[in-house]
Every structure is written in structure tokens, then in C-alpha cells.
């Protein structure tokens, strides 16, 4: 397993895209507290605003870092097929499950570290503009930040699973952008219409929307929708990721390389 981990680490760190995707993700997230600081630095901030600034805008629907890390996840598997490197990879490391496990572990650890660094940088920016980061280690902010960490991690693993499932990059990118931005919003919108109210029970199982509730300071309440709380919603997102990764893993073992 150590050989597989060494392989995946070398693969990840010898790709230029790893650095610019991580860099852009961190900078985009950092831009939120910096812009807010210039616009309203010194004004009083509550836990919700602080959370939005710490997670780089993810809480109001623009999960910059999660998206860029998910692309790294897609590249971890999709690039192998796009550029045909799956053949030399499997002749260097023919134990397929070990390879996938190494990819999951390395990408997950990198995602967690990058997300923590991003939050630390954003906290620093808040401290510079406001002089402190109020309630950083207290609930509900602490739970929301932990939720953000989990959200970014699960988002990235979905990307990795989709890259492996589709054996390429474009289809996985389309799904990871189309599903949260368009499909889930359409289902949510339609569920408000009386003729499509049968969609109401479905809404709490929409994976990306559920994942977004991991970041909320206050639990989202829509009458009659009976949405799960923070960790229940996170569970829905995690189960979705697990299903994608498991399906991709099984097919990877069965398919020709």
C-alpha cells in the first residue's frame, strides 16, 4: 500500500494543474473576506457573515474551493484515461483496489489540508480587517466550519468517483457542474408548484443541496419539506459520494483498462 501511496503522491505533485487549481481555489475563497473587508471592514459581523467569509462564499452557493478540489479529484482518475496513462499505471501497480484506495486517501488528505489552510488564510484576512474572528471555536460557527471541511472533502470524492465512472474528464465535469447548479435547482423549483408537489419528499435527498446544508449556521427550514439537519444532510451527500465511488470501483475492477 505504501508503494501505491508514493505513486499517487508523485502523480499528484508532478502535475502542474494540481498547483494552479489549488491556488485558484484558495485565492477565490480568500477574495471573499478580502473584498468584504475593503467594503465593510470594521462593521460588526455575526456568525453567519463570519462563516461565509471563512468558507469563501460556499455558504451562499459558490463553493469555489470545493469545485476546484473536485476538479483535482476528477483529474486523479479521469486523466489516466484521457491521456492513456492507465496502462503504464496498471503495469506499474496492477493491484487495482490498492490503486483506487491510494488515490482516495491521497486526494482526501490533500483536500483536508488545503481546506484547513484556506480557512486559516481567510481567518487571517478577517483578523486583519476586523481585528478578531468572533466565535471561531464556538458553536454554531465551529460546527459550520467542520461541516465545510466535510463538504469540500465529499465534493472532491464525488469528483474522483465520477472521473473513474466515466473514464474521462469532460463527462465528469459536466455532471459535477450541471447537477448542483441546474438539475437540483430545477427539482427544488418544480417542487414548489402544486402540480409537481410529489417532488417535495425528494428534495431532502438531493445530494449537493443536502451537502450545502453542512455549512449552514442556522438549520434550513421549509414548511412541509422536513429537511434533515446538518449532519443528516451531510449523510445524504456522503451516501451519494459512497454510491458513486463504489459503483466506479466495482466497474474499474471489472472493466478492461
Amino acid at each position, binding site marked *: 500500500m505504501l*508503494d501505491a501511496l508514493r*505513486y499517487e503522491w*508523485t502523480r499528484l505533485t508532478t502535475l502542474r494543474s494540481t498547483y494552479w487549481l489549488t491556488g485558484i481555489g484558495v485565492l477565490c475563497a480568500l477574495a471573499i473576506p478580502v473584498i468584504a473587508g475593503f467594503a465593510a471592514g470594521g462593521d460588526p459581523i455575526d456568525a453567519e457573515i463570519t462563516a461565509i467569509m471563512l468558507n469563501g462564499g460556499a455558504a451562499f452557493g459558490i463553493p469555489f474551493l470545493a469545485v476546484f478540489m473536485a476538479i483535482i479529484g476528477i483529474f486523479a482518475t479521469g*486523466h489516466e484515461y484521457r491521456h492513456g496513462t492507465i*496502462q503504464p499505471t496498471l503495469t506499474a501497480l*496492477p493491484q487495482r483496489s490498492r490503486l483506487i484506495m491510494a488515490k482516495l486517501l491521497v486526494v482526501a488528505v490533500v483536500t483536508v489540508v488545503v481546506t484547513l489552510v484556506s480557512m486559516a488564510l481567510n481567518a487571517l484576512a478577517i483578523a486583519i480587517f476586523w481585528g478578531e474572528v468572533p466565535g471561531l471555536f464556538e458553536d454554531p460557527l465551529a460546527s459550520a466550519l467542520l461541516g465545510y471541511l466535510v463538504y469540500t472533502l465529499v465534493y472532491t470524492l464525488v469528483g474522483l468517483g465520477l472521473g473513474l465512472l466515466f473514464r474521462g474528464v469532460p463527462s465528469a465535469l459536466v455532471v459535477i457542474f450541471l447537477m448542483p447548479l441546474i438539475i437540483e435547482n430545477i427539482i427544488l423549483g418544480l417542487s414548489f408548484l402544486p402540480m409537481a408537489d410529489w417532488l417535495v419528499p425528494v428534495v431532502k435527498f438531493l445530494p449537493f443541496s443536502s451537502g450545502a446544508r453542512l455549512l449552514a449556521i442556522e438549520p434550513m427550514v421549509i414548511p412541509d419539506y422536513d429537511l434533515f439537519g446538518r449532519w443528516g444532510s451531510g449523510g445524504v451527500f456522503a451516501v451519494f459520494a459512497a454510491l458513486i465511488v463504489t459503483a466506479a470501483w466495482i466497474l474499474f475492477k471489472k472493466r478492461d*483498462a
Partner: protein
Amino acid sequence: MITATGLYKRYRKTVAVDRLSFDVRPGVVTGFLGPNGSGKSTTMRLMLGLDHGEGQTLFDGERFSDIRRPMNKVGTLLEAKPFHPTRTARNHLRMLASANGVGDKRVDEVMELVGLGTVKRKKPKGYSLGMAQRLGLAQALLGDPRILLLDEPTNGLDPHGIHWMRDMLKHLASEGRTIFVSSHLLSEMQLMADELVVIGRGTMIFNGVVDQFVRDFTQSTVIVRGPEAAGFVPALEGAGAEVAKGKDGELVISGMEIGAVGHLAFTENVELSELSTRSASLEEAFMSATGSTEEFVAAEPPTAPATEKADGADNA
């Protein structure tokens, strides 16, 4: 030593590889021949577990997927350019080496060995096909393996590169390594390979030494020239030989040994200016052996209609 047993692969209704069994011995270069679409690459992928099918391949007694750090035992080159375009050639090798406990020093060594030392920090997207093949060979040699499995390694190489590759593989074989190499360059294979595995439509046609293949699939003929050659034909046919006329008017005789032809000429009092044998090439043997198993057969070039058209134009 490679031992392949009962290799079988089916794509829906098409059988790509049909119960192939063969051995590849150490110390010699074994060529893997077959027409386009005959299943050579699929066979190699099956051997390495890249494709799923039936049968088993043992590399010095072990299945490929059971070998820990396989690059140290089996070196492979399967595809011409399986490189990420923005990762440097050296980093590509470092990545594969890291999975097999091979150090950076060895990476630099093999880059020098294949003549890419000066461009090792360049991205392979700028490499020519020949350079990419050299990088592929460097990849195969990374772990200094005892077994090499190479799919069309001379593709894209210039004559100097082909010569270099041939010498390299023969040298590696002389060190007692097992070399299994596919190629469509038959003349190259004639110079390089000691033994052959020949397949057509996924089935075994021949497995043995090159000379035996040529003997089995072609006839050696006797060439006769002389001022009275045409008058010699009835005597030859009367003695049971088959006689054809060559391009330059020579007689091409099959079914009779050169000594018997000479003796017949002596007894018939026929003057000869040439009496020689012509051995078939590997290419002729290959065409003879695989002619009926070609998967993709092109139409003959339309020379006749073009001539007619030209004639018509002239007449008009």
C-alpha cells in the same frame, strides 16, 4: 520465461483471442507476428491483466497481478504515447518508479541509456513518435527486469533508431532476459527475432524458430537460366517438377532438388548459365501463413479503370 495458457478474449460476438498457448524462452528474442486486427495487442493486454478474459500467463511462475513491484520483473511498452502532456518525461518515469521502489538515479540512468538524457526535463507532448518510443523503452527498463514485453517498439523509429533498438533487444536477450516483441516490420523481425509466435484472427498459426516458420510456410525454389531454358521445361515437368517463368525469363522450379535439376540438365544435354536456389523471406512466409486470416483486407488499387479512362481520353 513466459508461459501463456489458454488465453481467450471475446468482444460480444467476436472472438479476439482464441485459446492461445505458448512459451517465451529466456535468452532469445521472440517475435510476435500477425496481421492488423489479429489480436496481438489484445493478447499482450490479456497477459498483463489489463483486459479481462480467460486463461493464464505466468512470468517466471507468477501471475502479473501477484507480483509485488512488477516493473522490477516485467518491463512493458504497450502504447506509443501514454504520457500526460504537461508532466516532464523524467517525472513520468519517477511516478512509475515510485510504485516499484526504483530510485531517481535509475530514472536518470535509463533516460541516458535510451538517448533522452538531454531532453529528460522536457514535456513528452513535444516528443516525436520515435522519442516517445525511446521513453517507452526507458519505462520498460526502469526496474532492470528479466522479462520484457514490447508492443511494436520500432514504430516511428528512423533507420538508425531501428538499428539501435534491434541491437539493444539482442543485447538484452544475450544477458539471458526473456524478450517478447511484436512488430509488423517483418524484415526487422527477420533480423531481430530468434523465435516466433504467429497468430491470425486470434488463433495460433505458428510457434517455433524463425527458420522453421520460413521452411513450413514457403517452398525453396530452384532457378535456372540458359540459352535453351525454354526447351528444358518439358523434361522438368516430365520428371514431376512444377515450372514457372520468372520476371526476367528465368525458370522457377519447385518440387525438385537443385541436384536433381542439375543432373537432369546434364542427361538432357541442356546448357545452363545459372543453377541456384532461392530461399523465401520471412515476409513471404508471413503472407503465406496469414493470408487467409487477414481481418481488414483492402481493395486492390484501381489501376485498370484508370488506364481505360486514360485510353478513352486519348481516343477522344
